[in-house]
Every structure is written in structure tokens, then in C-alpha cells.
């Protein structure tokens, strides 16, 4: 035992830990990328630190090609990893077993895959123990080795317990990143030491290589094909690679860094292998090549570099034992225990699961240690080769999941069973029981590592062949087929538009409680947070999203099988997932987010989709699409304006959840016999509105599953205009009738006047004569009124071609008289201060109409017992007439628009908004102008209408 080396090991471990911590604290994207890739390096670190040297010694350059193949999964990540990540975004699964169970369905798949993965990973456990033993044997005296191994076991137990209880990812990431970092440093330092001390420089080494014929040795014939194929296939199924790269804690951008950083690090770790190997062949230590990383520096008397090598291998072995055992334990739990576990009866469920994972991890480590004591005569490389040959059996099923939807569960299970059985019989069993002479005699090829290159490939080929054969015969059931399509690399997850029994978040919580107990509420709350939904959500589409999110989160927590059982028991779809139309709402949402990923025809189709959606959204009439289930699929901008219900609120919701009166309005129409109705009256608040409404003809055979489309067009303005015209027409009729009546009144009135004159003449000085005078006065008044009515009723026909000189005061008085005939009971006084001598060039009838409108407005605006003031002033060529009231005035917002048609400050139903528009047009015809100011001149309220009329 060398104290300096031990000190160096401890120092290097501390240095590695601190460096990884510093990298983590940097939180820089490059630092994060480096940590992730160092963790990946650590995942196969012992292979690179020890196995690489031995592989290079055995197979020469094949090592380089094998390691290239090992990193190809990352280089080709757009084909393998990114499709997987797309799927994980939606489905969420934590392990390879869960992915394969999700794709091929059923407990048998979970159990079979789990058993295969555990069996194939066991040689990797043994490789780690082998590495630990080698380190201990080199650095410690024999009596200290067993106690130290026991101490390391305890340490592994503690780390596992801590990692399972706390945040596994962050805790283990520190350990693995520091292990990877130490390995890179150790390889770099060792190769530098070897080249410098053994060869005396790079040029000298190159000359030595040429002289000694090492290049020819490196290029020798060997079973390269098997090694490359198995390394390539194993890298897909390596649990650590899979778990790290599909982790939802790693962003897409970060995971993409593995496409070049991880191969680069592996390259940097492989370059030193050959120089170290050559230095070993010169120094010829008593240790095998797999120990050169810490042996050669010791031989060259560099205790620190030797300690660095030992520390890196020690930390790599420990971190892989911990991480691999936790991963496999979770798989075992998800496949064998949790699918049948009654969760709500288990208090402190998460703690219970953590305990089981810890116990299971420790059990796996102990089993591996026991096997390590039995197995003898194998190297680290042998363990890795056996393990990789086993792991490679899972890759055909995994690749088929992404690219071959016709591969069935039966094909997968039979292929995997046959492949793993052949692997076990030909490569694993001979390790324990030696070769089977009967089997060897039958095949003619010896079993075990001697013919690893044959058996590993044959097991893989048998797997692929049987999988293909049994998938080709027989038909997959609908469930399998739908999940097979779902897992395809170029598939977009399209959830079905189905309804849940639950109609609110509270009901979802209550249902989930039946299976999960008290933890259901927090599970639902965190799912709501994740989706950005609130607890009052009742829209079916939102509840479906919530269900999907819950399912994904339970997949991560309990595995696919248990999560599927919980969801089926508590939140089943109604009636069945099959034959339901796609969830258009979610497809739209997903395409809006991920549309940028589309290429080629899909991208063009997406552009077309966006265009059509915009056309529908911007239609000037309201459009609603409703599913058969009553769910709103489309709600365009116009209908949102009509109803004041945002499309974000409406879409995805049920039609019977809409606010009144719209819910009844749409519902009544949907159940009506006629597919179109015109001018349907609807009271919205206190306002009456009219709509034309049409619906699509029911096409039950259509692809859309008989979704109904409603077109709604507001007709309120048209209806108001029409009503105004009808009112005007009625008033015009009355006017014409009044003219006739006035004419008919005129004749008897003349008779009455004549009789009254005679009577007054005969009885001039008597009271009867005085009464006759009064009768004459009253008949004069009636005569004036009747003439005014006749003149006004002539209207357009009375309009003169040219303007005439009219006395303004007379016109105003006549207008006031006419206004007093209206049925208004208002007590408002008209005070006219207009000079009787003022004259204007105008048309008397049109001017009366102008004044009638303006006086009418002033009368309506004025409070009772108030007055309206009319004044006029000559301004040379024009006369300015002002009409002022002291009413409420006109709102500033509409002052500039009061002369436009249909603009009114009166309450709905009280005014048509056409009076001032008529005034404006008549004044323009008369060559004058009109304006309105509010508040009134010389006042803080009311309004003043200012007219300017030509007087010359």
C-alpha cells in the first residue's frame, strides 16, 4: 500500500467533486452540456478506462470503429432520440421498459422486458465490481481489501438511500459528472506521461510505431462486424443513455449537444488508448492492459497520476453501480409490484416506493457481488461484451416501435424470448457451468466467450427473424395498432375527442381520490399548474388535457401499467377511446406550438391550415362549429364580438355551458326544424338585437363525424333602419291624411267664420256680438294652424326650385306652433328674441322642417319648466341663428359624429339618430351650415345649435 497514492486518490476524488459542483453552479448552457456529456461518459466509463485498453490489445483498430458505432446513436439523434423525445413530451415515461410496455401493451411485455434488461445489465454490475476489486488489489494490502469492499458496499447503500429520497437527478449528476471529469483528466495525464517518459515525445513514438510494425498489428483481421453491430445496438438500450436523453429535465437544445460533445469526448478518451497500450508493451508490467491506467503511472513513479487513474475508476464504478441499480429497481417495481398495488390503502405512498427502490437496489448490488465471487476468469471487456450482447436484444423492438408499426406484441415477445434465451444459453451459462458438450456437438461451435462474435450476432438475428416472422402472421388488435401508430417517429400525437364522466376539476379530484387517496388533490393541482389552467375549469377539452397531464405524471411516478390502471378506474373515457373523432382543439394547439418543425408537404399543408383558419376567423359573419357531443370546436372573431365571449373561453367548452342568452339561442336553433331562420329577435341585456342564423345540413356519413356548423349574422342595424323607414312612412301617411283633414276642416270653418261675421255685424254692441268676435278670433287661429299643416304636409312637392326671401321670425313662430301640436306634455317655454325684420334667402318649408327637428331635440333634452332660447344675428351676408337649451348636453365622444346617420345620444328606442342627419342635408341644400356645441354658449351645460343662413 502506497500512502502517497492513497492520498492522491482522496485528493483527486475531492477535486473531481468540487469541479463538478463548480460546473453545476455556473448554470451556463455550455457547462450544462458538459455535465450531461460527462455523465454519459461516466455511464460507460469503466469500459473506456479499462475495457478500451484490453479491446485495443485484442482487436486493434476495431476498438475505434466499435466506439464510433457506440456513439452513432447520438450522432444520428434526429432519427432516434428526437422522435423519442417528441413522444416523451406527451406520454412521459421514465424507463426503456415503460416505453416498450407503452408500445407493445400488456403486463407480459413489461415483465419480459424488465427481466431481460436486468439479466443483460448484470454483467455490467460484475464489470464494476471487477474494476473495484482490481483497484483495491493494486492499492491495498490483502488484509485490507475485504473490509474496504464491505465499506464500499455500505457507501453504495447510503448513496442509494440518499439518492432515492432526494432529487435523484441532481444528486447523481454531481457524482457521475465528477467521475467523467476525473476519467478525462486521468486519460490525458497518463498518455502525456507515457509519451513523455517512455517514448520521449510524439515524434519518437511515431517513429517507434513505424519501426515496430504496430500499424500492421492494429489492422489485423478480427471479428469486427460482430463487435461493431453489438456496440451499435447496445448503445440504444443502455439504461443510462436512454434515461438521460429522454429525461424531461433536459431540454431539446441540451440533449442535441450529445450529438457532437459526447462523440468528441469519447474520441478524446480513445486517442490515448493506443499510446498507453504501446507504452505498456515497452514497460511490460505484470498487470494486464485493462489496469494500465493506474499501473503504468505507478511504474513510471508518478503516484499522483496513478492515484488519479484509480480515483476515476473507483468513482466511475460506484456511480454506475448506484445509478444502474436505482434504474433497474424502478423498472422492477413498475413492472412487478405497482401494477397490482392498491395505492389509496398505502399511507405515505412516495416514501413506501422510495423504500422499495432502495431495498431492491441494494438487493441487486448484493446479488451482483455474490455472482462476482462465483465468476472467475473473465475480464472487464468480457463482462461488457456479454452485457452488450444481451442489451442489444432489446434494440430491434425499440427501433421497430419507432419505424415499423406492423411489428406486433407477439412478434416482439417471441423474438425477444428466443434471442435472450440463446444469449443466456450460449454466453452466460458457460460462464458458470462451462461448455455443454452436447450443444457444441450439435452446433459445431464452442459456447462462451471464445465464440462471442458468433453467438452474439446469432442471438440478435434469431430475435429479428422470429420477430418479423410472428409479426407477419396474425392481425394486431385495435389497441395495439393505435399505440403502434402513436409511437411512430413521424407521427404527431392526436388525442381523440372523447368526453369524461367528470365535468369539473373538483369531480376529477374526487374520482382520482378513489385510487390515489389524499395525494390526488396535490397531483391534480400540479397538473393544473403545468397546464396553466385554473381550478374552475369546466371545458371538456381542458378536462381532457388535464387527464392527459395526470396520466403522463402518473406514468413517471408509477410506470405505464399502474398509471393506465389508475386512469381506467378513476377517469375512464366515455364510452370508448376508439372510433372517436380527433381532438381538433388540441391538434390546433399543438400545431400552433410545433408547426415550425414541419417540413416538406406537411409544412405546406400547415400553411394551408393557417390560411383557412384565418379566413374563417376573419369572416364578417359569426361562425361556430359544434361537435356532436356539444363541444365547441370553432368560434370566430365575429361571433366573439357579437357575444363578447372570447374564443379562448368558448373553444373546447360545451355549448350548454355558454352564458345566457346565447346558450338558449343556439340550443333552440339546433333543435329547431328549419336549418335557417331570419331576423331572430334576442334580448341581450336590455338591448334588443336581431340575427339571421343558419346551420349546416346534417351529414352523418361525413368524415368530420357530423360536426355542425352555424353561421350567425347580426341584423340589428338593418332592422333599426327598416323600422325607422316604416315609422317615417307611417308619419308621412298621417301627414297626407292631416292635409286632407285640414282641407276638409277649411270649408266648414269658412262657413262658421261667415256666420260669425254676420252675427257680429248684426249684434255689434251686444254680448252676442262680443262672442262672435271671439269665435272669429278662434276661427282665425284654426285657419292659420290648418294652413300651416297644409303647407307642411306638401313637403317635397311644395319645395321651390329657387330660394325666396322669407321672414325668419315668422318661420320660427310657425315651427313653434307646429311643435306645440305634438302630443308632448312637456312644460318647456320657447323664448324667441329674433328680430322680426330679419330676412333670409331660403325655402320656407324646408326651413320649418329644420327648425322642427332642432326644436324637438332641444325640447327632448330640456328638463320640465325650463326654456329654450332662440336668437338670431345678422353677420353681413349671413344670418346666424342659435338655439340653446340647458339640458344634459351631448357626450364629447359623439359630438363630432352627431350629423352622421344613426348616431344618437338618446336611449335605444327613443330616437332613430336620423333627425340631425336630415337637418344637415337640408341646410346644405339651402346653402347654409349647421353645427353643434356642447355645453351651450355662455353656460356650463346644455347645447347650442348654430345655423348660418344666407340672407342675400
Amino acid at each position: 500500500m502506497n500512502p502517497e497514492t492513497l492520498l492522491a486518490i482522496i485528493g483527486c476524488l475531492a477535486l473531481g467533486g468540487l469541479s463538478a459542483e463548480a460546473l453545476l453552479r455556473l448554470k451556463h448552457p455550455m457547462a450544462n452540456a458538459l455535465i450531461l456529456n460527462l455523465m454519459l461518459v461516466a455511464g460507460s466509463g469503466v469500459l473506456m478506462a479499462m475495457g478500451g485498453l484490453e479491446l485495443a490489445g485484442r482487436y486493434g483498430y476495431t476498438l475505434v470503429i466499435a466506439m464510433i458505432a457506440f456513439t452513432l446513436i447520438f450522432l444520428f439523434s434526429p432519427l432516434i432520440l428526437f422522435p423519442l423525445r417528441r413522444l416523451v413530451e406527451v406520454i412521459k415515461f421514465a424507463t426503456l421498459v415503460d416505453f416498450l410496455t407503452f408500445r407493445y401493451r400488456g403486463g407480459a411485455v413489461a415483465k419480459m422486458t424488465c427481466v431481460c434488461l436486468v439479466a443483460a445489465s448484470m454483467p455490467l454490475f460484475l464489470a464494476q465490481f471487477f474494476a473495484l476489486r482490481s483497484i483495491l488489489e493494486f492499492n491495498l494490502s490483502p488484509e485490507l481489501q475485504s473490509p474496504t469492499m464491505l465499506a464500499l458496499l455500505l457507501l453504495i447503500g447510503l448513496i442509494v438511500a440518499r439518492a432515492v429520497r432526494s432529487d435523484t437527478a441532481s444528486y447523481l449528476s454531481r457524482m457521475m459528472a465528477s467521475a467523467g471529469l476525473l476519467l478525462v483528466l486521468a486519460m490525458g495525464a497518463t498518455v502525456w506521461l507515457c509519451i513523455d517518459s517512455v517514448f520521449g515525445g510524439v515524434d519518437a513514438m511515431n517513429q517507434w510505431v513505424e519501426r515496430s510494425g504496430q500499424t500492421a498489428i492494429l489492422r489485423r483481421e478480427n471479428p469486427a462486424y460482430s463487435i461493431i453491430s453489438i456496440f451499435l445496438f447496445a448503445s440504444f438500450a443502455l439504461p443510462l443513455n436512454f434515461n438521460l436523453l429522454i429525461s424531461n429535465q433536459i431540454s431539446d437544445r441540451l440533449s442535441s449537444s450529445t450529438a457532437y460533445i459526447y462523440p468528441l469526448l469519447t474520441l478524446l478518451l480513445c486517442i490515448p488508448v493506443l499510446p498507453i497500450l504501446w507504452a505498456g508493451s515497452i514497460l511490460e508490467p505484470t498487470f494486464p492492459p485493462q489496469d494500465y491506467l493506474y499501473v503504468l503511472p505507478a511504474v513510471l513513479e508518478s503516484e499522483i497520476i496513478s492515484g488519479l487513474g484509480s480515483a476515476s475508476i473507483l468513482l466511475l464504478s460506484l456511480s454506475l453501480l448506484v445509478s444502474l441499480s436505482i434504474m433497474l429497481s424502478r423498472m422492477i417495481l413498475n413492472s412487478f409490484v405497482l401494477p397490482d398495488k392498491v395505492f389509496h390503502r398505502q399511507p405515505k405512498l412516495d416514501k413506501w416506493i422510495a423504500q422499495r427502490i432502495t431495498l431492491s437496489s441494494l438487493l441487486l448490488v448484493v446479488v451482483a457481488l455474490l455472482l462476482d465471487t462465483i465468476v472467475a476468469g473473465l475480464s472487464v471487456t468480457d463482462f461488457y461484451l456479454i452485457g452488450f450482447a444481451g442489451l442489444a436484444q432489446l434494440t430491434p423492438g425499440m427501433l421497430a416501435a419507432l419505424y415499423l408499426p406492423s411489428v406486433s406484441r407477439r412478434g416482439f415477445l417471441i423474438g425477444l424470448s428466443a434471442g435472450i434465451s440463446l444469449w443466456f444459453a450460449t454466453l452466460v451459462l458457460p460462464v458458470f457451468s462451462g461448455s455443454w458438450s452436447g450443444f457444441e456437438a450439435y452446433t459445431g461451435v464452442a459456447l462462451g466467450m471464445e465464440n462471442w462474435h458468433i453467438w452474439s450476432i446469432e442471438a440478435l438475428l434469431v430475435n429479428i427473424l422470429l420477430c418479423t416472422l410472428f409479426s407477419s402472421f396474425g392481425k394486431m388488435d385495435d389497441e395495439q395498432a393505435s399505440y403502434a401508430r402513436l409511437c411512430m417517429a413521424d407521427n404527431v400525437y392526436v388525442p381523440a375527442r372523447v368526453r369524461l364522466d367528470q365535468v369539473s376539476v373538483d369531480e376529477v379530484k374526487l374520482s382520482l381520490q378513489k385510487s390515489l387517496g389524499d395525494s390526488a388533490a396535490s397531483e391534480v393541482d400540479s397538473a393544473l399548474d403545468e397546464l396553466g389552467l385554473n381550478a374552475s375549469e369546466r371545458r371538456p377539452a381542458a378536462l381532457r388535457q388535464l387527464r392527459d397531464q395526470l396520466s403522463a405524471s402518473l406514468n413517471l411516478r408509477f410506470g405505464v401499467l399502474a398509471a393506465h390502471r389508475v386512469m381506467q378506474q378513476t377517469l375512464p373515457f366515455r364510452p370508448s377511446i376508439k372510433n372517436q373523432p380527433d381532438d381538433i382543439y388540441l391538434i390546433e394547439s399543438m400545431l400552433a406550438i410545433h408547426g415550425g418543425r414541419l417540413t416538406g408537404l406537411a409544412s405546406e399543408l400547415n400553411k394551408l391550415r393557417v390560411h383557412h383558419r384565418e379566413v374563417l376567423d376573419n369572416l364578417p359573419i359569426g361562425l361556430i362549429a359544434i361537435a356532436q357531443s356539444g363541444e365547441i370546436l370553432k368560434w370566430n372573431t365575429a361571433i366573439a364580438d357579437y357575444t363578447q365571449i372570447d374564443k379562448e373561453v368558448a373553444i373546447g367548452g360545451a355549448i350548454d355551458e355558454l352564458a345566457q342568452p346565447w346558450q338558449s339561442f343556439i340550443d333552440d336553433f339546433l333543435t329547431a326544424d328549419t336549418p335557417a331562420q331570419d331576423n331572430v329577435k334576442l334580448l341581450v341585456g336590455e338591448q334588443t338585437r336581431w340575427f339571421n342564423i343558419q346551420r349546416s345540413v346534417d351529414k352523418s356519413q361525413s368524415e368530420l363525424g357530423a360536426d355542425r356548423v352555424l353561421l350567425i349574422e347580426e341584423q340589428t342595424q338593418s332592422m333599426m333602419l327598416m323600422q325607422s323607414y316604416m315609422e317615417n312612412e307611417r308619419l308621412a301617411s298621417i301627414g297626407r291624411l292631416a292635409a286632407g283633414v285640414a282641407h276638409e276642416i277649411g270649408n266648414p270653418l269658412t262657413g262658421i267664420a261667415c256666420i260669425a261675421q254676420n252675427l257680429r255685424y248684426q249684434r255689434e254692441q251686444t254680448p252676442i256680438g262680443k262672442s262672435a268676435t271671439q269665435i272669429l278670433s278662434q276661427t282665425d287661429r284654426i285657419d292659420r294652424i290648418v294652413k300651416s299643416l297644409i303647407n307642411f304636409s306638401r313637403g317635397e312637392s311644395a319645395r321651390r326650385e329657387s330660394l325666396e326671401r322669407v321672414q325668419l321670425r315668422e318661420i320660427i313662430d310657425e315651427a313653434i306652433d307646429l311643435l306645440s301640436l305634438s302630443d308632448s306634455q312637456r312644460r318647456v317655454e320657447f323664448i324667441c328674441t329674433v328680430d322680426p325684420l330679419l330676412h333670409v334667402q331660403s325655402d320656407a318649408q324646408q326651413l320649418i322642417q329644420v327648425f322642427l327637428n332642432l326644436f324637438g331635440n332641444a325640447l327632448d333634452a330640456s328638463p320640465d319648466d325650463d326654456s329654450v332660447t332662440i336668437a338670431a344675428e345678422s353677420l353681413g351676408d349671413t344670418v346666424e341663428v342659435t338655439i340653446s337649451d340647458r339640458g344634459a348636453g351631448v357626450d364629447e365622444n359623439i359630438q363630432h359624429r352627431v350629423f352622421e346617420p344613426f348616431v344618437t345620444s338618446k336611449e335605444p328606442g327613443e330616437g332613430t339618430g336620423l333627425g340631425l342627419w336630415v337637418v344637415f342635408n337640408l341646410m346644405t341644400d339651402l346653402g347654409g351650415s349647421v353645427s353643434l356645441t356642447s355645453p351651450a354658449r355662455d353656460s356650463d351645460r346644455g347645447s347650442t345649435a348654430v345655423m348660418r343662413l344666407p340672407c342675400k
Partner: protein
Amino acid sequence: MLNYRLVAALTLLCAAVFPMATQWAMEPSGSWFRPFVVWALMVFSGYVVQRHRVWDES
């Protein structure tokens, strides 16, 4: 979504470039580090492909 241009490029790479690169790397008169140069070029191509990817995340 599967990028078919990438698939085509990788297929071409495997069909044409890889055998040529292997032959060059394994020439008897070549330096011992030639395979590593090929590997480095592959890593660089991986970097170039990833650099031009469009990410949805901000």
C-alpha cells in the same frame, strides 16, 4: 417530424463516404491516427447538423 433530407444525406454518407474514408484510414502506409481523423470529421458533421436545427423552445 422525420427529416427526410437528413435521412437521405446519412444514407449517402454511409453508402459513399464511409467506405472511402475507411479505405483511406486503413491504408498500410498511413499514419496510425488516421481513423481518429475520420472520427473527428464525423463529430464535426454532427456539430454542423445540430447547429442548423431550429428549436421551438426559447
